[in-house]
């Protein structure tokens, strides 16, 4: 038996009896530093204040509480535990843990009830030995240094090749973090040819998808599910790929399978709701969104989009039939939560009010609906944040439905200006209007932008800048064009850009300051801004 007297332990279980008996087992092992928590929420707080060497966490913590897997995710993502710490998930039944496990964050070990002191000691001893063996890798992980992880793995494999398989996953993660795509692809394919594992399939699927090899990614996920039909994480991957391929109905079915395996997953339920809504399956959408809302209460993945989605699904489900009292209460409740909790977010406030207006109108109260719409329009006037393309389209459709066709058109016009270079967005706009003035408003600017990109890539920077400038004059709120202009300006400016150039750069970035933080280009915007303002 190893010496644990200097180590700190945290026991998390909602049953007092179990905490007591586990604590006395640890005492018998000579461990003095033992804390207990009756909920995961408390455990997370405690981990924020004290560094624990061992966490023994029961999986099931009761309804409406974070389960062990969610707690582990929170602790990892918020860096509240070191990679050197040992997290043991205690379960009543072994197979459930597998289904509930997320592929990204696995505990160091599962321990199935019942177990005795000898069994516990033996398990902990071995875990400590393994973590000691892997220490250089784990320290590099704590430092967030993937290059060093690879070096440490190489050293371990040379030192004792028998343990090389323990490094596989660390190496794959590090290669992914370093964007060594070709190397990672070869590495994962070799693993799958030898000893297929769910994580390796998932990593390969993600990699192929990221590199735009969508149909190959689909093949990988389909093969993976054939081999490991009980791993919900693989279904998530397949659904994501199917959405990208435009097969939204199949994507919905795939996610329904995943939800049957593992219903406790906020993000999965939310995506399922979204797909079902898009597929006009309003029953399915309200079921999934309802789950996402209620599970979201105690999750880091809580998202107001689920509330809006649920209200939307409930209204559309009853189109033409008014709304019964219970549904009205539910809609008020979920929208009320958004109004209360996201008071600062103008876009959400507008959207929540418009959805509510739609519901009220459907219930037959035209007067209140008109008032709500007016309030939403007033907020819209002063809004400087951009809607995401998706939200803009939903708002435009609602305004049209509420008899505010002109306001709806303004939204669409705006959307064309901001996102007009995105073909998928333009196709969706075309579904809502056939007004060619709106549909063609961005064409010239988008063309100029495309020429600018070509010149930029050919190294003709001044020519590129002129083309971007012309495009920007036509559509000053287009995010892509503004970012391209800023980037060209900074590139031309070099080490010490002239003041006028920096000012121009700041001006064009200021025009798109409303970019939603969910936009994939947000990070690029942020970096350009730092360079334009900071230097």
């Amino acid at each position, binding site marked *: 038996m190893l010496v644990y007297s200097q180590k700190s332990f945290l026991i998390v279980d909602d049953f007092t009896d179990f905490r007591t*008996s586990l604590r006395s087992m640890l005492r018998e092992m000579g461990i003095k530093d033992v804390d207990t928590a009756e909920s995961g929420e408390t455990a997370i707080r405690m981990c924020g204040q004290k560094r624990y060497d061992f966490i023994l966490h029961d999986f099931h913590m009761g309804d409406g509480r974070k389960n062990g897997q969610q707690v582990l995710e929170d602790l990892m993502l918020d860096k509240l535990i070191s990679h050197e710490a040992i997290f043991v998930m205690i379960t009543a039944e072994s197979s459930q843990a597998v289904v509930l496990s997320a592929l990204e964050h696995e505990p160091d070990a599962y321990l199935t009830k019942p177990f*005795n002191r*000898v069994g516990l000691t033996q398990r902990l001893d071995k875990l400590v030995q393994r973590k000691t063996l892997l220490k250089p890798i784990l320290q590099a992980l704590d430092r967030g240094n993937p290059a060093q992880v690879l070096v440490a793995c190489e050293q371990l494999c040379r030192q004792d090749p*028998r343990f090389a398989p323990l490094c596989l996953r660390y190496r794959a993660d590090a290669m992914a973090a370093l964007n060594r795509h070709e190397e990672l692809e070869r590495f994962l394919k070799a693993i799958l040819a030898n000893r297929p594992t769910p994580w390796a399939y998932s990593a390969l699927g993600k990699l192929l998808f990221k590199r735009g090899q969508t149909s190959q990614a689909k093949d990988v996920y389909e093969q993976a599910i054939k081999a490991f039909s*009980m791993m919900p994480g693989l279904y998530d991957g397949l659904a994501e790929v199917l959405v990208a391929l435009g097969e939204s109905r199949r994507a919905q079915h795939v996610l329904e399978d995943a939800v049957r395996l593992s219903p406790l997953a906020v993000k999965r339920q939310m995506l399922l709701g979204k797909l079902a809504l898009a597929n006009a399956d309003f029953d399915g959408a309200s079921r999934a969104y309802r789950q996402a809302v209620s599970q979201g209460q105690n999750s880091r993945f809580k998202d107001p989009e689920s509330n809006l989605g649920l209200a939307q699904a409930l209204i559309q489900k009853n189109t033409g039939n008014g709304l019964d009292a219970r549904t009205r209460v539910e809609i008020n409740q979920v929208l009320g939560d958004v109004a209360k909790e996201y008071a600062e977010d103008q876009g959400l406030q507008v959207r929540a009010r418009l959805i509510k207006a739609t519901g009220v109108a459907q219930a037959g109260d035209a007067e209140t609906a008109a008032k709500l719409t007016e309030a939403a329009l007033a907020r819209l006037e002063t809004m400087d944040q951009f809607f995401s393309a998706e939200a803009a389209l939903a708002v435009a459709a609602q305004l049209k439905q509420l008899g505010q066709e002109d306001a709806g058109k303004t939204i669409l016009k705006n959307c064309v200006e901001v996102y007009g270079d995105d073909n998928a967005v333009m196709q969706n706009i075309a579904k809502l209007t056939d007004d060619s003035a709106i549909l063609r408003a961005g064409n010239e600017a988008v063309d100029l932008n495309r020429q600018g990109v070509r010149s930029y890539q050919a190294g003709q920077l001044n020519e590129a800048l002129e083309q971007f400038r012309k495009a920007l004059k036509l559509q000053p709120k287009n995010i892509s064009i503004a970012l391209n202009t800023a980037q060209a300006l900074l590139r031309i400016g070099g080490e010490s850009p002239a003041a006028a150039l920096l000012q121009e750069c700041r001006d064009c970035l200021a025009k798109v300051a409303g970019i939603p933080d969910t936009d994939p280009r947000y990070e690029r915007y942020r970096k350009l801004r730092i360079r334009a303002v900071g230097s």
Partner: protein
Amino acid sequence: MMSRDKESGLDFSTVIASTVHDMKNSLAMLMQAHSQWLSRLPDSHQQGPEQVVIEHEFVHLNGMLVQLLGLYKLGINQLPMLPDYHELDDFIGGLLAGYQEILHSRDIVARYEIDEATPLGFFDRELVGSVISNIINNAIRYAGHALLVTVREENEALVISVNDDGAGFPAAMIAQQHEYVQGIEHSTASTGLGLYFAARIAALHARNGVPGRIEIANGGALGGGLFRLYLP
């Protein structure tokens, strides 16, 4: 396995599975309460022949319930399979640790040997764990004073053997082991079902088209029953 009672509309295998699930939880509570109660007794009362029976049957019951749930999930094709590399020393040591008190009280010395060249094995820890655990439990029942678990590599397969120094398997059982494995023959319910379960789990561990398998015999280093699990 999915026999549906048309008149009541009940799916009996599902009902049984959920009852077994409750039984398992209930047993876990019972075991925990028992050990707490025991720890409050004076030392002289903590040992005794009844105590040995209670401990052993607790573990045996638990193993059977796990096996039943496993068989149900196999039947509806929902047994999760999550293979990975595991340290064999940790794996076998952990299984035997669960039996330490029983072994001690029955005066059985259990040893395990792992080939140093292969410290890692690739398999589903829970599934193979429940198979080997049941086999160990069974071996304890029939062993004299010794139990030996060995792990080594043979023709690119990992071979886990459980050997005891008892009277061994009945000759008829060894002769008909294929029928047990196929689930055709299961007259000695507990052992027979155990072999069937073990064979199904072994077969789930296939590599390049070669499925895992099991084998029973008499002999080995200890001369009694010998169970072998082959994982390619």
